[in-house]
């Protein structure tokens, strides 16, 4: 019986080559190195093949490397981007097999059981994979074996694309050096080297019990996986759900009713997919292709994940009027650009003690208004500095609790968007007694203050000057909130 077959790909210069794909402006014939900060030092994290050929090594200090190789181009490493790129590459590899996995930082693993005949056998499959990668500028080494870890160990060391027949794994991996093949920790490698054990075969010949006592389970696990005695599970990558629906029309349509009816059908199809995937749409894009080959795009956004076709259709109602059909549209695509997880309908359990998020009718109203207005929910912040007393939170967020003491100070009910300059023309006992404001003189019947506010130094940055606030009342009864800072007087708000 033939067991499973695995194809492993090792991308020795993945991080650097991935970055180069994104930055075609980098000269291709000059060595490239990526660095990462470790404490205060900047160390090389990844190299391309030019830099590796010049003798640089990962872990070297960046300054040393630049001294050795003056033409070296250096860029900061982007581990997240490169891990995400590797996942994308694993998804791409699903053109060869339905089961593929990304092995960060630089490996791909494909379960090719039963797939090789589609490509004319294992060797042609491996060759076509490697050459496809090479076309995009990625150096890759591959291997095929009946155990995932054996294939990976072989791919990391051997450049001749070995294909190991079932049962021959142990013999094949025996001559491989321990360090590159098994990715063992540095300290363990040094200990093994001190015992004269440098290749996998050396370790395999040792009695297991003392090895386990000396080096613990990780070494034996790695060995067993590499020889195929034990097969740890692999975690295949799952393709994200396809959240785009397209309708091609036999006859172009151009009336608003026809477009709206088609949109309803698209929304119904998309919402069914969202429902299966347990998602709700946050941003939708409708692309309409006109008969003359141009395309028009409409976008809508929702504040909370939503998959109610009727609601989404209402949000599209306004943007739909901006479509210019001319001779008609022949093709429409509706694509959910952003989604959030969304439970089954009616699953409205409230977290204890927390105010509920707006849902149902209110959320739909906020979505509709949010297409044309800027909405915000004031979220109180624990601060005495006026500008920091609240922030504008998203209207769909659950309201935040009010900190104790917040708003207790006699505060203005309206704040000037831009403070209004005012001249204080007379003082009585240090407090303003008369104003010149908007070109007129006002006698003040009452003035309270000053209330001195110091800037909050713990936020860092340049500190604004301290402010003195005065609450003054004009003869008309109107009450203003005056601010005196840095020698300037301004009206900052209206008191009730």
């Amino acid at each position, binding site marked *: 019986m033939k067991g499973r077959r695995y194809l492993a790909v090792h991308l020795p210069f993945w991080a650097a080559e991935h970055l180069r794909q994104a930055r075609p402006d980098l000269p291709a014939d000059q060595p490239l190195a990526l660095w990462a900060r470790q404490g205060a030092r900047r160390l090389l994290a990844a190299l391309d093949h030019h830099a590796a050929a010049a003798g640089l090594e990962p872990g070297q200090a960046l300054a040393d490397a630049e001294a050795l190789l003056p033409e070296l181009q250096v860029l900061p490493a982007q581990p997240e981007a490169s891990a995400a790129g590797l996942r994308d590459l694993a998804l791409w590899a699903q053109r060869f097999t339905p089961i593929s996995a990304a092995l960060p930082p630089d490996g791909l693993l494909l379960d090719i059981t039963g797939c090789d005949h589609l490509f004319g056998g294992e060797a042609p499959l491996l060759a076509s994979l490697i050459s496809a990668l090479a076309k995009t500028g990625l150096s890759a080494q591959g291997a095929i074996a009946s155990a995932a870890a054996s294939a990976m160990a072989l791919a990391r060391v051997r450049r001749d694309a070995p294909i190991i027949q079932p049962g021959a794994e142990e013999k094949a991996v025996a001559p491989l050096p321990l360090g590159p093949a098994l990715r063992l920790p540095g300290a363990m490698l040094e200990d093994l080297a001190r015992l004269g054990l440098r290749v996998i075969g050396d370790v395999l010949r040792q009695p297991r019990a003392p090895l386990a006592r000396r080096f613990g389970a990780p070494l034996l696990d790695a060995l067993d996986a590499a020889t195929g005695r034990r097969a740890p599970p692999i975690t295949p990558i799952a393709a994200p759900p396809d959240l785009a629906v397209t309708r091609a029309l036999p006859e172009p349509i151009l009336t608003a009713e026809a477009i709206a009816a088609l949109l309803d059908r698209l929304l119904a199809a998309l919402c069914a997919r969202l429902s299966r995937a347990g998602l709700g749409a946050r941003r939708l894009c409708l692309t309409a292709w006109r008969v003359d080959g141009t395309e028009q795009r409409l976008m809508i956004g929702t504040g909370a994940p939503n998959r109610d076709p009727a609601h989404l259709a209402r949000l599209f109602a306004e943007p739909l009027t901006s479509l210019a059909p001319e001779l008609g549209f022949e093709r429409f695509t509706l694509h959910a650009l952003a989604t959030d997880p969304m439970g089954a309908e009616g699953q409205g359990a409230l977290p204890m003690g927390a*105010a509920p998020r*707006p849902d*149902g*009718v*209110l959320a739909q*109203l*906020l979505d*509709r*208004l949010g297409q*044309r*207005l*800027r*909405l*915000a*929910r*004031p*979220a*109180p912040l624990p601060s005495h500095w006026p500008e920091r*007393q*609240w922030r*504008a939170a998203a*209207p769909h967020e659950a*309201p*935040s*609790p*009010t900190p104790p003491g*917040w*708003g*207790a*100070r*006699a*505060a*203005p*009910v*309206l*704040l*000037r*968007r*831009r403070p209004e300059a005012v001249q204080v023309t007379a003082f009585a006992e240090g407090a303003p007694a008369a104003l010149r404001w908007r070109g007129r003189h006002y006698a003040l*019947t*009452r003035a309270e203050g000053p209330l001195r506010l110091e800037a909050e130094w713990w936020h860092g940055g340049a500190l604004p000057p301290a402010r003195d606030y005065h609450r003054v*009342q004009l003869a*008309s*009864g*109107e*009450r203003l909130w005056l601010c005196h800072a840095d020698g300037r007087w301004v009206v900052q*708000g*209206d*008191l*009730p």
Partner: protein
Amino acid sequence: MTADTPSPPRSAALARLRDTLAGLTARAPGGAASAPIPVFADTSLIGAGLARGALHEVCAASPGSGVAFAAILLARCGGQVLWIATEQESNLVWPPGLLPFGLAPDKLILARAARWPEALWAMEEALRCPALGAAVLMAGSGQGLDLTATRRLHLAAEAGGVFGLLLRPEGAAGASAARTRWHIAPLASADAPRWRLSLLRQRGGAPAGPWQVAFNAATNTLHLEAGGG
């Protein structure tokens, strides 16, 4: 079994159930949710209060007093409050200052429209939405708010059962379909704000006031001062 079950207990149970049901249905759409919004504790002045599901106007001699009075009324609605203003408005509503008047920030949603027609549209949409407690629109002096526009808003408020409030500056009095129009002006005060409040117009009623009132934050009431009127 049907034959020997005595009928009187069963009909009594049915009647009890019907009573319960009637109580439930009466309370859900009506009841507390549709009770008028009290302005004064003393109901002899203007009756029980301002009707929900209707449009009301507040004309303010100073911007601060109008906003404070609006906050008092909106806080008494219960439910979420949508506060609509245009980008041209030079003043921003300041939530910390509204809390002393009973309007907590978790009840408040602020909306800013780029242009006046959008603000009007948003107000109408909001008034049609029964999930909202109240909606308030800050109208500047130069903004077109004629009889037709206010009638539209009033009809929307009737449809949604939402308390609608227009905040207008003092001089901007034209024809309006609002149920009531209030005028508020600040008075000299030592500590708590004092206002002169008058009911300029009310549909199906006589104008009333002016009253001299002060707001007591501790009891959340508008006090009538002795010398007023």
